């Protein structure tokens, strides 16, 4: 009688583990699913210095904290040439994204997340002008709305050569004409952002930014992993 359950258990375990998507071969996890070891909060980004980044059910959750103040979570380690893989599930009306080669205050190339603005997957600069901004015009081919989507970002070279795949589909590839970092950085941290929406006081100005982060909105991340590439790699 009991033996009958064994195939059921095996089947359950099979589906359970295949449902938990795995990091691709050759990639090393940089988020352990339990806590934020290896990560820290930027205390100098204008987005906010006290964001709510925490781990829940194995996912890295990105929110504002207190109301109106976002922030940037950074890896402790700096990466030069690499491929980054992660899976993200993002709410509508929540502007954020993935920072690559970020400085401590969050000066970085950014893979934008903003479903309501339709700009998810675009390449922008955070606190710096980027020579070649990229639009994720092909994203619809691969995108799963209101669901988990995988991002793979390849970043190589002193003059950055950047490629983005979403759910395994190449969305764009760009070779910048120059290194856009003010301090000429060739390495930097991986960062995750939640956008600010509130000024400290109405005296500062009349700002209408609620569409950048709906009350209580969140980004969820899992399977964050990196494959470091040769420092001397040229493409």
């Amino acid at each position: 009688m009991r033996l009958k359950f064994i195939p059921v258990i095996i089947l359950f375990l099979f589906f359970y583990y295949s449902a938990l998507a795995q990091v691709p071969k050759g990639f090393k996890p940089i988020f352990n699913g339990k806590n934020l070891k290896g990560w820290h909060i930027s205390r100098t980004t204008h987005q906010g210095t006290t964001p709510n980044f925490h781990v829940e059910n194995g996912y890295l959750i990105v929110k504002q904290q207190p109301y109106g103040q976002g922030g940037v979570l950074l890896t402790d380690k700096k990466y030069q040439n690499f491929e980054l893989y992660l899976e993200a599930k993002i709410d509508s009306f929540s502007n954020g994204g993935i920072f690559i080669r970020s400085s401590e205050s969050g000066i970085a190339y950014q893979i934008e997340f903003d479903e309501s603005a339709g700009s998810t997957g675009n390449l922008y600069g955070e606190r710096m002008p980027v020579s070649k901004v990229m639009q994720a015009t092909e994203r619809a081919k691969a995108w799963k709305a209101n669901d988990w989507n995988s991002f793979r970002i390849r970043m190589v070279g002193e003059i950055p050569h950047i490629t983005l795949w979403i759910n395994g589909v190449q969305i764009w590839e760009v070779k910048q004409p120059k290194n856009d970092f003010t301090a000429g950085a060739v390495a930097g941290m991986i960062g995750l952002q939640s956008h600010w929406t509130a000024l400290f006081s109405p005296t500062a100005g009349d700002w209408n930014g609620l569409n950048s982060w709906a009350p209580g909105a969140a980004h969820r991340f899992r399977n964050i992993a990196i494959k470091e590439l040769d420092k001397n790699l040229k493409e």
Partner: protein
Amino acid sequence: MLKKLVVMLLLGYVWLPNISLMAQAEAVTNSFGMEFVLIKPGSMLVGKYQPTVGEYKPPVVRAGEQPQWVLPPKAYKVAAKMAQEAAKPGFTVTIKRPYYIGKFEVTQEQWQKVMGNNPAFFQGSRVKDDTGKHPVENITWQDAQTFIKKLNKLDKEHIYCLPNEFEWEYAARAGAEDDILWANARKMGIISEQITRAVGSKEPNAWGIYDMIGNVWEWVQDYYNDKIFADPVPPQSGKEHVLKGASFTGDAKNATYLTHAAGPGNGFDVGFRIVMEVR
């Protein structure tokens, strides 16, 4: 006779510092060319959080374009409630003693004179004008302390230290009770730029002090409390020290008196200014 002498000495002890206080000059320049402004006692409200919400605006429809997505009006009601719950009344800080604060951030030229080196990232070919007039940066809190120690040895007339966070904020506010208007942050602060500028390039604040907002982050004496704003009493220990005023890479969002940030920062946009008293 001896009694008289004791009384006279005591009187002198009580009266003399006050006399010297009354006689304090509004501005002082030390032998290294560093200019200081006298800050008089007073009080201010610190850490008041009144987060803004904004108002619902219907989507903009442009010919030939997808209509813009906007949050519904009810989201603004939820936000207003959250903003109200997050609001903080702040607390009053009284500055009891007058002090002198640097009219400018410590420059590379001044650092060079005192320390005999220049650690700044933005110098030489990276800067188009006179590097010496740009603020020194790429210094840790400990480096700032080393500079102050050296300066205290070299200058026999004055005593220097970093301002504490409240001394910094009081001088930055220059009497402003609430936050700084964005437009004024841009007039007074070097922000949303890609490198430092010579100190004093923008307008001074109401008390004649330059670049409290922008150019480089400024180290203050206090340890960081991991909170959005300071506590009435700073922590006795900690890993990082507080940074104030934002830098050239800052936005009007954080280039305000209130921003309570912390190290390590980028390095290339982190400097300091000092406070001084007459020996």
